[in-house]
């Protein structure tokens, strides 16, 4: 079948402004949106820029706005979206070229929340023990692939890019609720800042956008309540 695809193009070397470009592609309903982008790049316009790697939703490279919503291009099939398919870069981060945005500030926010296990006690020769229940407590947030679909779907982040964003809070949650970690207090101290967790206004866009099905807002709420209890 023929599919109409509109892509928001922007090349900093030649364009002053972004513009929509239309492509008519021969596609199979079972193909991924990513396959369509490849078709454009490989057989139509080689200069189209987008990130991708794994092509099955585990590396987090290709978050983009498809028909007005954030998703991974490799995780959605042509038959699941309405045509014409509109593809734009994710919002709130500076566009580098076409569908590629500058992710530096996104990763900086992530790094700010101490996204690593801190435990100064001598662990001994063998593994630290952790009950399956304790392990389950943070299972959901370990799934994050740092794709930025959540953060760039957040209406607060669009207008205030200093907000650490849901992805960073999810990654703080991952450690705050890990029974082996000793630094949750410090992480919560960081997140109670103006640009921290209390900036979230429960818009839930992040939860709908997360391609890993993480209950992002729930994690943020857990963090907010935890901050309340330690103060």
């Amino acid at each position: 079948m023929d599919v109409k695809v509109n892509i928001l193009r922007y090349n900093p070397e030649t364009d002053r402004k972004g513009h929509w470009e239309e492509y008519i592609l021969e596609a199979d309903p079972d193909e991924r949106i990513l396959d369509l982008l490849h078709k454009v790049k490989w057989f139509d316009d080689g200069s189209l820029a987008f990130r991708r790697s794994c092509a099955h939703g585990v590396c987090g490279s290709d978050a983009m706005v498809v028909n007005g919503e954030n998703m991974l291009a490799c995780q959605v099939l042509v038959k699941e979206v309405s045509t014409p398919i509109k593809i734009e870069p994710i919002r709130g981060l500076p566009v580098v070229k076409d569908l590629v945005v500058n992710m530096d500030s996104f990763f900086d926010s992530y790094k700010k929340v101490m996204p690593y296990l801190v435990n100064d006690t001598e662990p001994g020769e063998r593994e630290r023990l952790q009950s399956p229940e304790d392990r389950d407590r943070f299972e959901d947030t370990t799934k994050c692939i740092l794709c930025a679909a959540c953060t760039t779907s957040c209406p607060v982040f669009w207008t205030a890019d200093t907000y650490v964003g849901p992805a960073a809070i999810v990654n703080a949650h991952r450690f705050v609720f890990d029974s082996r970690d000793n630094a949750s207090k410090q992480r919560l101290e960081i997140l109670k800042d103006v640009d921290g967790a209390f900036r979230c206004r429960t818009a839930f866009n992040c939860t709908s956008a997360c391609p890993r099905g993480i209950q992002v807002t729930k994690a943020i709420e857990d963090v907010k309540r935890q901050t309340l209890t330690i103060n």
Partner: protein
Amino acid sequence: MAYQDIVSTGSVYKGRTGMWLYLFHRITGVALFGYLLLHIISTALILAGPEIYEGAEAIYKNFYFRIGEVGLMAAVLAHAINGLRIIAVDLWSKGSDYQKALNISAMIVFIAIFVPTTYKMIDSYFELCLEKSSAGTTIVDCMIRPLPDWKTK
């Protein structure tokens, strides 16, 4: 603004209910604050005595302001109910699990109060208007001109 102007698309992000409720809560909140300031001023006129206070109040006594009042009621109601929903999500550990149910309940509660209240407010306006007007006044008259002589009981 963070989102680069050069590629601003004019297209709208298709958020779900939560995003629109967030926007709505913000707009009603700001509007209510604005109204609060006006309300403080008009109430403060009471210190200047009955004439002036009632003179100012008289401005409000027409159908257009009644529609505005319904809007105000809707804003307070919506902001309050949605505020309670937000509080549930924030302070109740299971709140975010029931997000969809809470959204729907909030909307149902809103409509359940909004509809009869609106009816009461409109209905009571016409009732009072017709009661105070001379015979032969129609509903349309009540709509297009101020309430006559509202001080006479």
